[in-house]
């Protein structure tokens, strides 16, 4: 069953062991206002959402949608894993100057490149890419890891993300 934001506020408040009066006081609103939120008669003011979410121990997104944020890296069980040939390694480099580079490499090609003895620093001269070990990334993917496997921010301010899907 899908819950409303009011239901979630009530549930999270009770989980925190707070009374409506306590929550209302911390937010600077009346207890009647909290009661109306929980009974789906009105919604909290948008400016109150960050503080309300903080008091209830969730993100604003979770409070609004009821969905918890997905972890950036997931380990897939054996039966859900895709063939390496159907997977893609996406490397994104965002430079401090505002330039963006996206490279999409099929995992099959990454594997073939590693077989040739190529490594990331030989493929790109970017300082932030220097210490990324492709062999370890391939090994992680073999063990079922997908998602944002690497995030690097160089001293110069460039940021690099390696994403596998």
């Amino acid at each position, binding site marked *: 069953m899908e819950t409303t934001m009011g239901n979630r506020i009530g549930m999270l408040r009770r989980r925190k062991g707070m009374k409506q009066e306590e929550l209302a006081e911390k937010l600077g609103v009346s207890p009647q206002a909290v009661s109306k939120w929980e009974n789906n008669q009105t919604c909290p003011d948008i400016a109150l959402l960050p503080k309300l979410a903080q008091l209830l121990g969730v993100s604003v997104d979770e409070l609004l949608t009821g969905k918890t944020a997905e972890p950036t890296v997931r380990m897939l069980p054996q039966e859900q894993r895709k063939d390496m040939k159907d997977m893609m390694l996406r490397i994104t480099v965002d430079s401090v100057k505002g330039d963006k*580079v996206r490279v*999409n490499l099929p995992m099959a090609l990454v594997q073939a490149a590693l077989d*040739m*003895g190529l490594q990331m620093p030989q493929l790109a001269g970017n300082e932030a890419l220097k210490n990324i070990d492709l062999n370890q990334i391939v090994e992680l993917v073999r063990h079922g890891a997908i998602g944002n496997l690497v995030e690097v921010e160089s001293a110069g301010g460039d940021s690099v993300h390696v994403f596998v899907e």
Partner: protein
Amino acid sequence: MQIVVRDGDDTNIRLRIPTGLVLNRIIVLVARTVLKSQGIDVPREAALHFLAEIRTYQRHHRDWVLAEVHRSGGMEIIVKL
């Protein structure tokens, strides 16, 4: 292979190069020579295997975008194999 260069509204270049001209044994030879000059020795068999893998993937994924570059000044370069 397609290379698209967009620079604002004025410049819009679209280069279409037959894939056979880009992915062939001569290019592999050139690439190996360039890599060798940088101290990276790639065995011939491994290089040909790499070429075969690229060709296979490219045949099965016609919409594969190899690289995209977005410059802060607005220029965009897209490379499709």
